[in-house]
C-alpha cells in the first residue's frame, strides 16, 4: 500500500467514524434504570407516593430507626442521628469493604453488623420485612445520588469474581446474565420486557412478590429462570455478583422506593 492509498484509507475511515457513531449511539450502551423499560402503569405506581406500596415500608423503617432494641439500649438514631444524614453517601456505596471481616458486605449485612455489635440486638433475617424497611429508608434518603461502589484495592478480587459469575452460563437452560441484560435490553421474554438488570433501585417492591426484596432475591429469580440452583441471599457469590453489578450501575441515580413488575 503506497502513501496515497494509506491516506485514502485514513480519510475514508475518518469519514466513516461519525457514521459509525450514528449507527451505534453511545446511548445504546449508557446505563439506564429498569424504570426506563417499565410499563407506564408501573412507572405511574412508582411516581405516585400515595399509591406506591414502598411507602408502607418507609413508614415502618422510620419507626424502626428510632426504636431502642438490644442490650446496649440504643436505636439506629442513637448513633446516626434522627435523619442519618452522614449515611446518605454511604448508602449509595455498598457493597463496601469491611476491614475486620476482610471482605465486602452488603447494606443489609452492615445493618445487622450494627445491630449485633453496637446495639447488642439479634441480627434480622435476610430479606425480612424489618430489615428491608430499614434498608429501603436508607436508600430513599440517598435517592438521586449516583451509585458509587468502589472496586479498587482489596475490592478488586471480589469484583473479578462477580464479573465471572455475571458471564458464566448456568442451569439447565445454560444462560448467563449478560446474554439477557447486556445483549437484549428492550426485547421481550414472553410478556416481560428485558431491562439492563441494574440494581440502582434495590431493595425494590416487586408486584409479583407483593413485598420489598433485595437485589439478591432478584438474582435468585433470574437464576431460577435459567433452571439453575440459586446461591443464598448474602452468600459470598451473590455479594461478589452485587459488587460487579453495582459498579456496572455507577453514576445511575439511586431510586427508592422503586416498583417493578
Amino acid at each position, binding site marked *: 500500500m503506497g502513501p496515497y492509498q494509506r491516506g485514502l484509507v485514513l480519510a475514508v475511515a475518518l469519514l466513516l467514524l461519525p457514521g459509525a457513531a450514528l449507527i451505534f449511539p453511545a446511548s445504546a450502551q449508557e446505563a439506564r434504570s429498569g424504570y426506563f423499560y417499565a410499563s407506564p402503569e408501573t412507572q405511574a405506581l412508582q411516581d405516585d407516593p400515595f399509591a406506591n406500596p414502598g411507602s408502607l415500608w418507609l413508614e415502618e423503617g422510620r419507626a424502626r430507626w428510632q426504636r431502642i432494641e438490644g442490650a446496649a439500649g440504643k436505636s439506629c438514631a442513637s448513633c446516626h442521628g434522627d435523619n442519618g444524614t452522614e449515611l446518605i453517601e454511604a448508602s449509595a456505596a455498598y457493597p463496601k469493604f469491611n476491614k475486620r471481616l476482610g471482605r465486602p458486605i452488603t447494606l443489609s449485612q452492615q445493618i445487622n453488623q450494627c445491630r449485633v455489635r453496637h446495639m447488642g440486638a439479634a441480627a434480622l433475617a435476610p430479606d425480612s420485612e424489618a430489615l428491608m424497611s430499614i434498608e429501603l429508608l436508607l436508600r430513599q434518603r440517598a435517592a438521586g445520588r449516583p451509585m458509587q461502589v468502589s472496586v479498587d484495592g482489596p475490592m478488586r478480587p471480589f469484583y473479578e469474581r462477580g464479573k465471572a459469575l455475571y458471564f458464566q452460563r*448456568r*442451569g*439447565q437452560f445454560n*444462560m448467563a446474565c449478560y446474554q*439477557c441484560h447486556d445483549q437484549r435490553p428492550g426485547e421481550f421474554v414472553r410478556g416481560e420486557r428485558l431491562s439492563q438488570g441494574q440494581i440502582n433501585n434495590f431493595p425494590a417492591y416487586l408486584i409479583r412478590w407483593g413485598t420489598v426484596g433485595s437485589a439478591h432475591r432478584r438474582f435468585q429469580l433470574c437464576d431460577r429462570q435459567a433452571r*439453575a440452583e440459586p446461591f443464598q441471599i448474602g452468600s459470598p457469590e451473590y455479594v461478589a455478583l452485587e459488587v460487579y453489578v453495582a459498579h456496572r450501575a455507577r453514576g445511575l441515580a439511586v431510586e427508592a422506593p422503586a416498583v417493578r413488575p
Partner: protein
Amino acid sequence: MLNWLIIMVLLLGFASSAQSETVAPYGIVADAIPKPLTRNPGDAIRGRGLAAGRRANCLGCHRMPIPEQPFHGTAGPRLDGVGSRYTAGQLRLRLVDPTLINEDTLMPPFHKVGGLHRVAPAYRGKAILSAQEIEDVIAYLLTLKDE
C-alpha cells in the same frame, strides 16, 4: 475423516448417556444431525403443543404462528417459514445443542445433560426435551413453510 468425526461424537454421546439415560446418541455431519433420534417419526401436533408450553418455552423467545397465545418473545428470531430455511437435520442440531453452531447463543440446549453448571436439583441429569419430543418439535417446525 468425517466418519471418524461421526464415530467420535457417537462415543461422546454414549459417554454422556452413561451418566443419564435421557440423552440419545447422535452423529453430526456438517451443520446437521441427519438421522432422527428415535424410530418413531415426530408428531407435529404434539410438537406445536411443546413449542407453546412452559417446559420447552420456544414462545418465550420466538414469535411463531400460534395466535391463541398472547405473549411471544422477541429475544430470538421469528420462526415463521423456518421449515423452508432448514432441513430436519439442521433443525435437529439447532435444538439438541445450539452452542455447537453459535458459542454465544442464548438458546438453551434442549437435548443435553453434560457440561452444564449448577443445574437446579429438580432438573439435574435430565435433558429439557426427550429424544421423541425433539422429533415432535422438528415435525412441527417443518410445517412452518414460507407461503
